């Protein structure tokens, strides 16, 4: 009896974790399992309508849903589009936020003000930001085309162009996220002991060498972590697409998460949607795992 008592631990702790268990159990853990089960069944909306809460209806379909997901001609297109987005978004955000963190870490006039300004795009909603950029990049009367006109260039109708729609969305996403990633770099920079720089000063080390020997290696380590966050962020790009282009023009901005959303909520192909979302999930896990191995190797 005493043994059971002690393995249960502090009885009062169950009161404290009860809300968490209920809410996260029902609305986080159960959904994860639900999607997993649905990805192996031929679920359809009618079956779903009549099923109970703790039941994933439909007969077992093996890997059928996964095959259907891959067979979808938009599947590889969406991977390509997501890649296109990432190739623009990730490097720009990484270099800009690292550079700005170095800049903001200096004692310059107006540093605090600029730091706040950089952070504003991060705190406003994606919907707000999307509307702003739709207006800025408007083909007929947008500011961007007006500015280009000054240089004698006639700008395209950005968001209706299969070539330009995705880069505009990517640039907007950079604008939204740079402030946040700058803070992560800044936190890293401010963790460098001041004595390190002072010791370097005593030894007569030049500014450039200080940067190369102290700041640069640190930025490299932070960048490893930042890169994984950026990749995951790029793999989840979704809200901007719904608001700005709806996947168009000619499917050129359909990303993987947007395709999953469309499959589920527009075409009600629940099984393939669940299968696709799990393929994405597995991919994220693999990337996280590989990155963790690299970090451990470098730092360990």
């Amino acid at each position, binding site marked *: 009896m005493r043994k059971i008592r002690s393995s*249960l631990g502090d009885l009062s702790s169950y009161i404290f974790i009860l809300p968490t268990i209920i809410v996260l159990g029902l609305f986080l853990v159960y959904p994860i399992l639900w999607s997993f089960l649905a990805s192996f069944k031929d679920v359809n909306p009618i079956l779903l309508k009549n099923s109970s809460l703790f039941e994933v209806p439909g007969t077992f379909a093996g890997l059928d849903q996964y095959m259907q997901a891959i067979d979808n001609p938009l599947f590889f297109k969406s991977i390509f589009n997501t890649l296109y987005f990432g190739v623009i978004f990730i490097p720009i955000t990484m270099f800009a936020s690292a550079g700005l963190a170095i800049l903001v870490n200096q004692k310059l006039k107006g540093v605090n003000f600029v730091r706040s300004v950089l952070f504003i795009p991060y705190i406003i909603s994606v919907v707000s930001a999307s509307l702003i950029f739709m207006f800025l990049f408007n083909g007929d009367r947008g500011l961007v085309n007006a500015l280009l006109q000054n240089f004698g260039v006639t700008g395209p109708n950005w968001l209706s162009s299969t070539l330009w729609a995705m880069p505009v969305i990517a640039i907007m996403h950079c604008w939204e996220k740079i402030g946040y990633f700058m803070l992560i770099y800044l936190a890293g920079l401010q963790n460098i002991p001041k004595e390190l720089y002072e010791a370097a000063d005593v030894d007569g080390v030049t500014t450039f060498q200080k940067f190369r020997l102290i700041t640069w290696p640190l930025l490299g380590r932070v960048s490893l972590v930042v890169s994984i966050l950026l990749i995951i962020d790029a793999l989840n790009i979704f809200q901007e697409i719904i608001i700005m282009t709806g996947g168009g023009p000619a499917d050129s901005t359909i990303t993987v998460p947007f395709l999953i959303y469309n499959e589920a909520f527009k075409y009600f192909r629940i099984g393939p*949607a669940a299968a696709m979302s799990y393929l994405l999930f597995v991919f994220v896990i693999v990337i996280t795992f590989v990155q963790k191995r690299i970090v451990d190797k470098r730092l360990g």
Partner: protein
Amino acid sequence: MKNNKSILTILLWSTGIIFLLPIYWLVISSFKSDAEITQFPPTYWPKEFVWSNYPQIWDLLNFGQTMINSIIVSITTTVLIVVFSTMAGYAFSKKQFLGKNILFVALIGTMTVPPTVLLLPLYFIISKMGMYDSLTGLILPFSVTVFGIFFTKQYIDDVPTELLEAARIDGCGELRIFFQMVVPLIKPAITTLAIIMFVQNWNSFTMPLVLLQSEDKFTIPLRLAMLAQQNVAVPWSHILAANVISLLPVVILFLSLQRQFISGIMSGSVKG
């Protein structure tokens, strides 16, 4: 050296200006007349400030109701998140219970789950529980966050356990220890968490999109997004005015409490 510094200052300020430009353009355009806003090339400062864009769009969209919905959802969710997550953070930090370590690892694991994995099952589960097309459906299912638990746990870890033991010996009840000792000690962290969660919920778009149907329940981001879809009927000046109204609360909140906000994000990123 002196020259170097002024180059850096110029660089800093020009980046600031580039980042501010979209916001500037939004705000001044929201004061232009319909005629002026369609003009090309555009004017860089309104010829005449048209204040009426604001009341017009406010009435047209029934924005008062939308605002109230957003306030109800954001504030209630934030309060619940703060209370429930702090309670769990406390249990994970200072208490022993069955399955604690497994549960903690599982929670970390859930952080890599892409939001799209959850979208469809959440829609299904919330509907089955009778919360589809209701504000409750946007509040209760999201009243605990893993981020909130980790965030508060970090700070409760720093509260000396001896202090809590002493209170316990003096005969303090568990709930009293929590609410009268732990909570006041980590008040700054709780404020920070509340700000971050409020902003997140105020801006939330995907769940309302999936879970709401009737217009009188719409929250601000959803209403704004709908506006963009039908932008033939509503002039840009009005859409932009609605946009300014929608982001004003979070921008004011951020500017007045930015120190806490920024330090919260930074500590979350370093320790987490």
